């Protein structure tokens, strides 16, 4: 079967050599493809969609805080059954912020940085034809969907199957915050969403972990084993380095939370007592396990963004990166130290004084490698020739905003000050400066920078700068006042606040900012999505930014096979050296043998397995129903077993497929 497909593919390829069609890549390799670029695009579009979802939840939160107890526009009518005639009830509000954090962290920033950018860029940056495990790569995408479905289900089903109708139960999502501390999350009567909804939340996070770990194994193998000849570790682009470090973090951190999640599921389902203090369990155990994952998680979110910024600043300063070695090693040090600071999230829980002091000192010290990066970026710009294109603006915004987030981080690492700030809006301001000002701005910088490579068309610069201005202003107007709100004692995660403390004005200003930020992001996403269709956009050509790394030696959009001839790398900034460097630094090409370019077969089985997992999840979701006559609870596991069987069937068929693949023989000029 695969050989037939291979012949067709090769034949078909010969007939449209120079397609101008930007969707060519998507058309040539359909959505069950194993091509790393297509999987990257799939991740990109999925996470864009989820970002809209998470953003709407955040706007709901902001609306409530600006105008407590007033009817919510639009959403209020949609959920009017649940949210008390358009008002946001406290129960609904706790769900809003819980799901906002969950969606943004687990379904947007992790998958977009590792999944979309990592997938699309790593093979191009290191001169490989594809990922080391293309099928595993596809599966890591398809497992995202059961995860998304779990989170979606947790919105709707809190009490088993359609107990009080869709509209009646829609307000009950998991409501114990994204940190889900037991006993709030362990006892099903503790919070409105701590019934089945919390269970779906646990399943969803587990699935995201599965997806991320599959992706990480793939990135690690690819980066270590699939580099082109001459691409030594110290010639790797910084983004690739950061993704490598992040892959190690994911592999080491996710097992910790998976253990915690499974223990909590056991507590809830089988009556074990890991966290139940009445039976001798320890609620602190969850917090330790959660933050052993949770703090490296922060670096999982920020390191790839730092990698992106490290790629962009040299390009628009027309200079090589200042102190490449130190930037790489400071990233690695952040990765290592990231595992030794988790307890600074628990300063107020009454840990011992020695533990608290040790974690406090270590937390202070983790600011050193972060500071080094910022100084080195400024060193890169120093004496450069600066061009203010949109990617550069976002990168500069990243530096400015991330510094603010970093400095408030230093404040929190001091224990007595943290005791004032903990769980107040000051902390909310801090981590949004890190995650929006840092990760999201880095993300947008990356979009504006690499989308021309993805689509072959330049994005509209003017619109891009407009988006930057909106986002920068909207972001600061939203989150800077939160520093004050926190200092004057507004606790986070509260549905409304007492009057007379001066909270109202700042909250209303923050809400205005949030809507400006929302509009900015919306225009940005519109720009990214229409880049695939808009006919008016200019052609990008191979290297529109005069950029430095290997992917810019390829045509835009990149051909299915990436490199017609595997390059032989001679220096760090290979594309730059090819254009401006001395002759001996120009890259060579490995001649094409009769083997050609080996392409991975497209395969249905990752999709089949992914659907099987989805079936398993659905089956578990619907396994319970109530007999209308007797009120007896009926359990039916048929569908869950069927789904699981499909997943296992997919995996068996997949392993029987063997390492087939097909071969392409592109001309040397076609890359």
């Amino acid at each position, binding site marked *: 079967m695969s050989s037939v497909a291979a012949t067709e593919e090769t034949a078909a390829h010969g007939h449209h050599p120079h397609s101008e069609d930007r969707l060519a890549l998507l058309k040539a390799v359909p959505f069950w493809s194993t091509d790393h670029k297509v999987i990257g695009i799939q991740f990109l579009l999925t996470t864009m969609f989820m970002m809209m979802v998470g953003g709407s939840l955040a706007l709901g939160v902001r609306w409530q805080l600006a105008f407590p107890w007033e009817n919510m526009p639009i959403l209020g009518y949609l959920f009017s059954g649940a949210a008390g005639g358009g008002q946001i009830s406290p129960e609904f509000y706790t769900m809003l912020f819980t799901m906002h954090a969950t969606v943004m962290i687990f379904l947007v920033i992790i998958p977009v940085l590792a999944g979309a950018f990592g997938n699309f860029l790593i093979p191009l940056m290191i001169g490989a034809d594809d990922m080391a495990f293309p099928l595993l790569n596809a599966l890591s995408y398809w497992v995202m969907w059961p995860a998304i479905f779990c989170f979606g289900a947790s919105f709707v089903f809190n009490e088993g199957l359609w107990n009080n109708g869709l509209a009646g139960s829609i307000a009950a999502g998991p409501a114990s915050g994204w940190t889900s501390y037991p006993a709030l999350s362990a006892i099903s009567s503790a919070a409105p969403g701590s019934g089945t909804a919390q269970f779906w939340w646990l399943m969803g996070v587990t699935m995201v972990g599965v997806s991320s770990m599959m992706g990480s194994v793939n990135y690690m193998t690819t980066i270590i084993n699939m580099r082109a000849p001459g691409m030594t570790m110290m010639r790797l682009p910084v983004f690739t380095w950061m993704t490598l470090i992040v892959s190690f973090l994911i592999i080491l951190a996710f097992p910790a939370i998976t253990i915690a999640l499974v223990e909590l599921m056991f507590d809830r389902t089988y009556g074990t007592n890991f966290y139940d*203090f*009445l039976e001798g369990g320890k609620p602190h155990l969850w917090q330790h396990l959660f933050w052993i994952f949770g703090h490296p998680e922060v670096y999982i979110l920020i390191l790839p963004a730092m990698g992106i910024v490290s790629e962009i600043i040299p390009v628009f300063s027309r200079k090589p990166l200042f102190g490449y070695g130190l930037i790489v090693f400071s990233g690695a040090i952040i990765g290592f130290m990231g595992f030794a600071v988790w307890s600074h999230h628990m300063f107020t829980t*009454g840990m011992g004084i020695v533990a608290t002091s040790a974690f406090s000192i270590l937390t202070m010290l983790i600011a050193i490698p972060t500071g080094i990066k*910022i100084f080195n970026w400024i060193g890169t710009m*120093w004496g450069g*020739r600066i061009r203010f294109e949109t990617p550069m603006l976002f990168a500069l915004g990243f530096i400015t905003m991330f510094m603010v987030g970093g400095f408030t981080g230093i404040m929190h690492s001091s224990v007595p000050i943290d005791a004032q700030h903990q769980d107040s809006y000051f902390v909310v301001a801090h981590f949004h400066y890190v995650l929006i000002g840092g990760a999201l701005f880095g993300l947008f910088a990356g979009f504006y920078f690499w989308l021309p490579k993805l689509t072959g068309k330049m994005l509209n610069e003017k619109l891009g700068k407009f988006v930057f201005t909106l986002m920068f202003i909207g972001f600061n107007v939203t989150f800077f006042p939160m520093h*004050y709100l926190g200092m004057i004692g507004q606790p986070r995660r509260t549905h409304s606040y007492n009057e007379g403390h001066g909270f109202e004005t700042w909250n209303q200003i923050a809400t205005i900012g949030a809507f400006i930020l929302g509009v900015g992001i919306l225009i940005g996403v519109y720009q990214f999505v229409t880049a695939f269709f808009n006919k008016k956009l200019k052609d990008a050509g191979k290297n529109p930014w005069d950029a430095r790394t290997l992917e810019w030696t390829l045509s835009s959009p990149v051909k299915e096979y990436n490199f017609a001839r595997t390059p032989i790398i001679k220096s760090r900034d290979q594309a730059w050296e090819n254009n401006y460097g001395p002759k001996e630094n120009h890259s060579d090409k490995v001649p094409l043998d009769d083997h050609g370019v080996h392409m991975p077969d497209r395969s249905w089985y990752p999709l089949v397995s992914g659907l099987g997992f989805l079936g398993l999840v659905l089956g578990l979701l619907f396994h319970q129903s109530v007999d209308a006559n007797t009120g007896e609870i009926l359990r039916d596991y048929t569908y869950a077993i069927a789904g699981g069987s499909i997943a296992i069937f997919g995996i068996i068929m997949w392993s029987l497929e063997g390492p087939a693949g097909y071969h392409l023989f592109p001309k040397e000029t076609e890359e």
Partner: protein
Amino acid sequence: MKWFWCLFFAFWPIVAIALCWVSPSLGWWFPSEAASPLGRRIDDLFYMILLITSVTFVGTQVALAYALFRGASDTEPEADAKKAWYSHGSHELEVIWSIVPAFVLLFIALYQLDVWAEYRVKDAFPRDKMEAVFESINQKRSETDSLALAEVTARQFEWRIRYPGFNEDGSLKPLMADPQPTDLYAVNDLHLPASAPVMINLRTMDVQHSFFLPDLRIKQDAVPGLVIPIWFEAERQQSYQLLCAELCGWGHYKMNARFVAESDEGFIEYLRQLEREQNEDRVDEVPETDAE
């Protein structure tokens, strides 16, 4: 246009300086002056770190803006733009900007521990001052009795407060770990003597809560299964906000209470009143507001 962007990024250090100057006088950083000596030390620590970080932020941002201005002006006019300064890095500079922040951060890290140690190390608890309070309110106690004057138990969504009751001879009993028949109870209304360090025991009945006195800069989580001693010292005799600072369920937002710091006599008077309310049926007492 490029000058606009240079100015755009040069603008932020100016805003930062302006805000840091203006905000303390407008009361933007803290709800009020800290109402306790420990709180003031925490505030001083905060302002010290704020100063160090602000100077660093402004310095770095000025360097960034300078690099941008120079980088943009070197392309003027377009035709004979200067070449960029070619550099792969400088070990000397990198060593400097690794070592200097390391020293500054290490200094802050060690300096701040003092305040924390004073607050949380059991041996450093101001025992003498607390005992002076016990004497003043006439509490009969042995050496081993708890230093706490009240036990605060958090539950969804209220603060339950348990005080020790009175002996036959009118002296106050010490607070026992377990509830006693003579204990006095109140909800969402914590009264304690002012002007001296006092201690409470914090616990929770259900999920995790957090005991937060913003004006006193005190925050301590109430963790299921643990009894956590906290001491604090309110200097002024007044009411303070008492909030829950850890998500504890849908009613987290309304878990407010007040902490009344009063004179020693006022505290005893309050306990006497509680005792009366608990032990008498009070049907004879007609509520004053009963107008109809």
